[in-house]
């Protein structure tokens, strides 16, 4: 079945699923962060999305932009660390990019992710190859855009984007970190998968899974 729009309730379900996925991957993400960071990424993201869950009821009946901006604010005020401002910015800028919509087209989705990823890059100043979440997000954005431009429906385009995110995530393994806490390790950061790239992949994959579930 081709998917041409994402209605608001699916966005809300995406956020709930993300909360669940991050809870399930709390230890995994934390373990990744222990290797090259400070062992809190999973704990932080889990705490942050628990806060999101508690605030969703207050905006569920508003537009997609409001839902996403509230998500961003909740993350900003609860995640902390590097992940907080970055994912906070990600969702706030995603919300700002799509404004008062009740459903998203494929093109809207590109706009949303473009705004989100731009925000992360502006805030964190990471370049591709620095071994950060940008290494998962940017390839995903590119893949999504190309697929949508080529006429793919949302599900197919998202499948490609998630695959690109997964590849980008795995590609961080051989990278030498140049941003964030992992950068202090120099050569010793090589050989480990970046926790932020991993959470980015999981978040995008949660969107795909939400859509697949209902499609």
């Amino acid at each position, binding site marked *: 079945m081709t998917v041409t729009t994402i209605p608001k309730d699916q966005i809300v379900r995406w956020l709930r699923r993300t909360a669940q996925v991050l809870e399930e991957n709390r230890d995994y993400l934390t373990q990744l962060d*222990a290797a090259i960071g400070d*062992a*809190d990424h999973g*704990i932080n993201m889990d705490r942050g999305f628990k806060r999101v869950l508690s605030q969703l009821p207050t905006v569920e009946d508003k537009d997609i932009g409001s839902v996403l901006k509230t998500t961003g604010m909740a993350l900003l005020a609860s995640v*902390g*660390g590097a992940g907080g*401002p970055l994912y906070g910015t990600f969702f706030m800028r995603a919300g700002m990019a799509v404004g008062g919509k009740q459903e998203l087209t494929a093109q809207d989705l590109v706009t949303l992710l473009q705004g989100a990823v731009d925000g992360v890059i502006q805030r964190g100043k990471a370049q591709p190859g620095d071994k950060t979440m940008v290494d998962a997000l940017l390839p995903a954005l590119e893949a999504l855009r190309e697929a949508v431009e080529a006429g793919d429906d949302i599900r197919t385009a998202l499948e490609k984007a998630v695959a690109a995110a997964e590849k980008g995530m795995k590609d961080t393994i051989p990278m030498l970190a140049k941003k964030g806490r992992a*950068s202090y390790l120099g050569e010793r950061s090589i050989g480990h998968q970046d926790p932020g790239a991993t959470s980015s992949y999981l978040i995008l994959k949660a969107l795909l899974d939400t859509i697949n579930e209902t499609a």
Partner: protein
Amino acid sequence: MKKLINKPEDFVRESLEGMALAHSDLIKVNFSPTFVYRADAPVKGKVAVVSGGGSGHEPMHGGFVGKGMLDAACPGEVFTSPTPDQMFEAAKTVNSGAGVLFIVKNYTGDVMNFEMAAELAHAEGIPVQNILIDDDVAVKDSLYTAGRRGTGTTVLAEKICGAAAEAGYDLKQVADLCRRVNLNGRSMGMALTSCIVPAKGTPTFELGEDEMEIGIGIHGEPGRERMKIKSADEITEMLALAIIEDEAYTRTVREWDMEKGEWVEVELTDEPLKPGDQVIAMVNSMGGTPISELYVVYRKLHEICEKKGLKIVRNLIGAYITSLEMQGVSITLLRVDDEMLRFWDAPVHTPALRWGM
């Protein structure tokens, strides 16, 4: 997990509640959002000095709130930078109109969160300055990393800038002094054991029975090098020489331009220590190392400084900037001039640092 805690998720809150009960003459603690502030804040006409960072480094920062030091501290979750709303609310609470200095340790998370807080404060009409502390010589270059981490110099900067604010310095003067303290302070640390983040429940890294980690950060991040444990004298020499022989270090930092209301990039370079310099020497426990061992380290540090022509004019030995229960030590040398020394000696009364009153 061998800790005196209840549920891991309650640890930071309960610890702060205990601190508030113990030191109600000095501090108050606000929750949601969380910050510790001077019981008598805002202090009329005084620049407010505010810091913050992940919890787990106690007594820093909350233990340094009080007379002659910090006006507020924003504790995050363990090893996790606090959030902009905490900093913003703290700033609103302690600002007397003379503005707020945010003293920020250079970690990506802290920097980004404090930048967002500064933007919020500015929007609210609060004069604000962010000064970074990046003194950890274990991090060599700034081009290919997030730059040097903020460690021991933070404690000294908070004391000195707190005293300057108390003495009536205006915001620009306190910020300038803070920048100068940072450019004169250098630190390096090491760990004998890993700490355990309560929420994680297992050691952040595994060290063999005969291993240590040199150039460790204060969040249990792995350091630069793992090696067989050496004697206290050898370890002290490694840390002290890394500090003393460190070359000039240049970095570009973002500071807030109050007039323009925007971030500006500033290039800062510090000067290596040289014979004849006067220094404050801090020998700091990472949390689990007892003071008897710190004195063994200080003994050797004193000898090395003498040999290198550095004069230790003051010292601070104890657990001031820690990583939970980690065993290990960090050394900080801060080159001081008369102005800094005068503010160092000024009376201070906080839960963790007290003299002259």
